[in-house]
């Protein structure tokens, strides 16, 4: 395609974007001479340049537009909503024309008679209706003045650069960063002062170059936001709502690829807020709010991430409706819905196929959208969260990384291999040594947990998840390293052999042979030239079935409630013995849950014992203690709840371990059995609460065992 046309397409696109904003602004400030002049100039450029390079249709449409603007400048025509709409329509037509030219190289056979007619109608009507415009006649002179003053100031400070070239430079800088890392590793066993200082300089220059190149790819988020005034205007006009759009931090910069990735999600959120969030003026007045609603966009940098908030002062989310819908759609069972916090409920809007809008409009509410928003944001390593106060509005908070190409990562070792964990997922590091390492990680059946400041943290072992068979290069102290990670709004602990260091790594994608493995986000080259895999924390959590599923929600609810520090609540271990109903033991009485092979049970005196951690642990049958008819001896291992006291451990033999619940328990019924504290309703079932110390003493006194 002709080089001139190419250039004009880019310039034209920018002019049209600017026109969108200017018109919306102009509607609010109809007296601004500067705006009239700017709009006139822009349309004039489109007409003039378009004509010069042979785009006749573009020329003819904008010619009429120019005439209208010219009348306005002369004060013979004053702006109103219908004129603005017609002119905005003209801009849409311009856009379509440019798109066709870009696609085919020609203007195509679009029918322009309709738009030209409606523009001409404004001209003739304007002549009759408006005698004295709001813009005084001398505006022409002023506008021309401004025009000549502003004309030259943006000429030399910018040049256009091909994005592909920037990408290539970025890749090369990535390579340079790797080479730098390699050189720095050599410096550790070099003594040559000249070499060391050269390496140091290389290090500094590379870092600066890296920052500089990153900056070239940075764009202000305003580039996307600029489209919103028009979107908001059109939507509020068509829906009869009054909306004020406010933006803060539009200069906040993001990597180009990320800007592109969040464009659609952001637009969707804005449309959604307008359509579902904000109410009509009548509804707002009835609710004692000003008739004009507020849509507020805010962006800022924080902790190496970009935060974007979209809030409205509308009706807020109807949590009850969401809850009801979730149950109706079978997304979650009703008991579970009852236990979820408001925040959890609100975040259900991100689930697929979810829309509570009473009526489906052409703007949104088709049940697709918010889930796509979430997926798209998560795809670029971001998170999205919604909070809402009924009657006062809704706020969406999006957190996204600054860039995707070079990221800080924590390097860990497991099974002799190194893995990189993106720093954004990292919460904290916990190291258990000595005694703590032996008993710190507790088992609930198959699932390992660690009590992190009173909260149960699910634990997964990296070597088991990755099926690594090689043993760790153990440093002999038996310490456990737990990397606490955040994925999909949930925390979990990842046990690794060793924690090395944090490093800036260059992310490289995996080839298709390996792309199906959800645990890896890519690979990188380490300072010593070897390849290391980058862990995909969300994928890893999903593989270990921690995140995403509905059971995960329950765990999160339990966790959140714990985090609230509600002292009345306690964790209970639910179990079953014989044909009895459910039994519960306070989790604080439980040291570990174990399985023993029946063959390992030995007798000592008249007691049954097992060897457990270099101790002889007596076994107590809960069934016998409660005089519940025990099941016939079954095959397979026995389930044992280990209760440790100062004088040693006792194993309580039960038939089945069911669950751990976290709730406030009120003892509903006292029972005349000292081994029971009473019974209570847990998870809608009557459950007997075991008095563990009493049970053990009674067994000891009776001299009876399992």
């Amino acid at each position, binding site marked *: 395609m002709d080089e001139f046309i190419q250039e004009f397409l880019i310039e034209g696109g920018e002019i049209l974007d600017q026109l969108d904003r200017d018109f919306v602004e102009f509607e609010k400030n109809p007296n601004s001479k500067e705006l009239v002049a700017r709009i006139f100039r822009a349309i004039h450029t489109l007409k003039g340049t378009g004509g010069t390079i042979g785009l006749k249709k573009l020329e003819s449409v904008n010619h009429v537009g120019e005439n209208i603007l010219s009348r306005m400048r002369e004060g013979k025509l004053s702006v109103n909503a219908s004129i603005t709409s017609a002119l905005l329509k003209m801009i849409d037509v311009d856009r379509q024309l440019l798109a066709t030219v870009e696609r085919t190289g020609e203007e195509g056979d679009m029918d322009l008679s309709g738009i030209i007619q409606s523009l001409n109608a404004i001209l003739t009507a304007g002549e009759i209706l408006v005698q004295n415009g709001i813009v005084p006649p001398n505006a022409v002179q002023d506008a021309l003045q401004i025009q000549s003053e502003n004309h030259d100031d943006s000429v030399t400070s910018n040049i256009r650069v091909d994005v592909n070239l920037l990408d290539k430079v970025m890749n090369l800088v990535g390579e340079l960063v790797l080479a730098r890392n390699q050189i720095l590793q050599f410096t550790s066993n070099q003594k040559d002062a000249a070499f060391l200082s050269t390496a140091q300089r290389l290090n500094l220059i590379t870092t600066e170059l890296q920052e500089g190149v990153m900056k070239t790819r940075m764009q202000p988020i305003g580039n996307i936001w600029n489209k919103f005034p028009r979107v908001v205007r059109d939507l509020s006009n068509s829906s009869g709502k009054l909306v004020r759009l406010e933006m803060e931090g539009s200069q906040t910069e993001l990597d180009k690829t990320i800007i592109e990735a969040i464009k659609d999600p952001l637009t969707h959120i804005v449309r959604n807020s307008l359509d579902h969030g904000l109410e009509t003026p009548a509804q707002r007045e009835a609710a004692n709010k000003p008739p004009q609603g507020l849509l507020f966009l805010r962006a800022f940098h924080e902790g190496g991430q970009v935060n974007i908030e979209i809030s409205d002062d509308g009706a807020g989310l109807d949590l009850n409706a969401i809850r009801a819908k979730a149950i109706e759609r079978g997304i979650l069972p009703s008991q579970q819905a009852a236990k979820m916090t408001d925040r959890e409920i609100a975040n259900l809007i991100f689930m697929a196929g979810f829309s509570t809008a009473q009526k489906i409009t052409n703007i949104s509410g088709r049940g697709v959208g918010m889930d796509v928003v979430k997926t798209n944001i998560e795809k670029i390593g971001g998170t999205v969260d919604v909070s809402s106060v009924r009657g006062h509005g809704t706020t969406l908070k999006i957190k996204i990384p600054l860039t995707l190409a070079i990221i800080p990562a924590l390097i860990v070792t497991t099974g002799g291999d190194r893995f990189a964990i993106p720093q954004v997922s990292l919460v904290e590091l916990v190291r258990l040594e000595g005694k703590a390492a032996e008993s710190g990680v507790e088992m609930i059946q198959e699932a390992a947990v660690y009590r992190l400041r009173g909260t149960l943290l699910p634990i997964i072992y990296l070597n088991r998840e990755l*099926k690594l068979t090689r043993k760790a290069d153990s440093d002999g102290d038996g310490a456990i390293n737990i990397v606490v990670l955040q994925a999909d709004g949930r925390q979990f602990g990842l046990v690794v052999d060793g924690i090395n260091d944090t490093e800036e790594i260059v992310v490289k994608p995996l*080839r*298709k*042979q*390996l*792309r*199906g*493995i959800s645990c890896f986000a890519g690979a990188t080259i380490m300072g010593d030239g070897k390849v290391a*895999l980058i862990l995909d924390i969300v994928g890893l959590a999903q593989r270990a079935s921690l995140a995403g599923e509905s059971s995960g929600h329950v765990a999160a609810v339990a966790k959140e409630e714990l985090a609230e520090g509600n002292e009345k609540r306690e964790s209970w271990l639910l179990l079953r013995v014989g044909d009895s109903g459910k039994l519960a033991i306070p989790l604080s009485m439980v040291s570990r849950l174990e399985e023993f092979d029946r063959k390992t049970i030995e007798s000592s005196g008249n007691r049954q014992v097992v060897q457990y951690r270099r101790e002889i642990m007596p076994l107590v049958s809960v069934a016998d203690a409660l005089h519940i008819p025990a099941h016939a001896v079954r095959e397979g291992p026995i389930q044992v709840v280990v209760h440790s006291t100062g004088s040693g451990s006792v194993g309580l033999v039960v038939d089945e371990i069911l669950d751990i619940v976290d709730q406030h328990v009120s003892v509903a019924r006292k029972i005349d059995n000292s081994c029971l504290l009473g019974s209570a309703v847990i998870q809608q079932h009557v459950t007997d609460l075991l008095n563990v110390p009493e049970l053990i003493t009674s067994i000891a006194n009776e001299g009876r065992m399992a």
Partner: protein
Amino acid sequence: MSATQQQFCTFYIQSLLFGVEVETVQEVIRHLEMTGVPLAPEVVAGLINLRGQIVTAIDLRRRLGVAGRRAGELPMNVVVRTGDGAVSLLVDEIGDVVEVEEKDFEKAPDTLSSTSRELIRGVYKLKKELLLVLDTQRSVNISATAGNESH
């Protein structure tokens, strides 16, 4: 080189002579240190750092279903270009570049195992030995989901 002639880069796997078209070969290099990929299909030997580029290495022995290498036997890398970037094929030993004639070509015999038949496009009858033509595209065509990723 006439139209009926074709050049092949050859290598050995368990004393069998294989060849790939010279044009598809990017380079041949000695053994490089590899990083294993957990959960990957067995035929993926690991990832290598080829001058800053991360390349997947596929063990042709495992791909062809023949016995694995003994400890201490280091494979060589034949890096081939594929539709999805460079891939390294791990082979036992590198042979010469040979020129073959169209008339010496024959289809692979039906008695080969099904994996081998899938990967061997045909045979050139050289004077001393047989040259098996490897289908590179099929050799590197493995998806991770087909491996042991599923629980």
